[in-house]
């Protein structure tokens, strides 16, 4: 899923203060799961903003709404009336959702309330870890199902650098060395020899390096 984190309250306050009528628009999918922008977060943020603005003697009328997914037009359409009666929209979706809302309502001011951080998994309650960069050319089969492009700080494809110690990354002692994990897993599977093969340079053309990407499914186009 897409993992995000709500922006610091001071940054949000600065963005919303100039507007008299504000819609806080939540998203009920990924950012709900990571506690950044679901219905609960919309309610909490609205209360916090009301209090904070009151202490500064700034009056902003705040409306709350959450749609199922801000990255899909059918759901965004449900917000049309609420958007039209407010001066600005603070979207708590990921960056894709914010842009989709802004595209649907081009005359409205749409502000981001969340920092979209990564594609990750819920490792345990309250802990999300980055696992995928969406590079467009998945080579997980080579690396025992652990992605060095995302999880090695140097994106090394041919083995660990000289800095890993006790299975931890030299960049951050709280982070597992991806290569340590890869070697451990392939050793346990008796397939360590797989790593003896030279891995050629990565083809970044399939990644964001090739510009924003598009996926067309002809069989689903109407």
């Amino acid at each position: 899923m897409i993992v995000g984190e709500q922006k610091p309250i001071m940054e949000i306050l600065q963005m919303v203060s100039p507007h008299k009528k504000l819609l806080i628009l939540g998203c009920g999918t990924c950012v709900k799961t990571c506690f950044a922008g679901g219905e609960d977060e919309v309610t909490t943020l609205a209360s916090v903003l009301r209090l904070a603005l009151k202490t500064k003697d700034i009056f902003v009328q705040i409306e709350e709404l959450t749609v199922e997914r801000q990255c899909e037009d059918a759901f965004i359409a449900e917000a049309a009336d609420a958007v039209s009666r407010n001066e600005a929209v603070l979207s708590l979706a990921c960056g894709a959702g914010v842009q989709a809302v802004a595209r649907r309502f081009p005359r409205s001011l749409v502000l981001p309330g969340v920092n979209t951080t990564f594609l990750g998994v819920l490792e345990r309650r309250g802990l999300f870890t980055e696992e995928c960069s969406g590079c467009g050319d998945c080579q997980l089969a080579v690396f025992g199902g652990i992605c060095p492009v995302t999880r090695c700080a140097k994106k090394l494809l041919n083995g660990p650098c000289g800095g890993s110690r006790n299975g931890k990354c030299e960049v951050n002692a709280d982070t597992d060395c991806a290569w340590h994990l890869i070697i451990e897993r392939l050793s346990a599977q008796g397939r360590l020899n797989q790593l003896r093969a030279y891995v050629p340079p990565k083809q970044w053309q399939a990644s964001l390096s090739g510009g924003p990407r598009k996926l067309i499914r002809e069989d689903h186009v109407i």
Partner: protein
Amino acid sequence: MKTEPISNLERVLSEGRFAVTAECGPPRGANAEVIRKKGALLKEVVDAVNVTDNQTAIVRMSSISSCAHLLALGIEPVMQMVTRDRNRIALQSDILGAYSLGIQNILCLSGDHQRFGSQPDSLNVFDIDSMNLVRTVYTMREEGTDMSGHLLDGSPRMYIGAAANPFADPFEYRVIRLAKKIDAGADFIQTQCVYNLERFRQWMSMASGEGLTEKVHILAGVTPIKSAGMARYMAKNVAGMDVPESIIRRMSQVPKEKAAEEGIAICLETVAALQEIPGVHGIHIMAIEWEEQVKIIVERAGLLPRP
């Protein structure tokens, strides 16, 4: 195909002599005099001078231009090149340019992560890794083509080095990685600083067991320790460094004013031990901002004059 030795370093190693190289860090500024001074301290003391490429991710004079300053003094450089800061287009372009300036040795590295440097907000590139860089330089030399397969008008013939860290985890993979670097095209290997001789011997014997010491020239890294504080710092804070407790204790037991002398003594004992290990073909001295000690070490180790 490569036949005659390309560089002096290759000549020394291929003649079976015990090679000596030393490290030279460029200045944090445009003052070429710093390079010339360090060069003068190392001239005729070592077979080649290894120039770092923005080491520890701190902006310094480029490796390529520092190498050119050394060449002007008649000193053979080994140009370090890291994949952290340049994509494959820039790396290949700089290899061509470096060779055109007379640079004949290259050490291919991934590079220290920018988190440790002076500008941690910078974007790292890592378009390719050090293994890919070794293969790139090798293909340029042997096939005369760049990474796209384009035939080069004048191919760089470089003597190719790569790094190995016998002390990093996971240990069992370290020899496999060395084998991969040799297959990719490495002619010589420079290791992380050796303080833990026991572990180094173990790694060498594993490498030798795989027949790797017959395929590549291994230069063991050494760094003289200036003080007990430096020993402790390296043991605790430098990624991939293995400084045994016995070394720290030895440095702590001598009075402060004798610490440097003790550090040199440890270094000389290490060099003597390394010369006895089968498959070690030379040493690489990394006397960080202590270049004046290199001549003393090489002389006292009985390795002067250089061939």
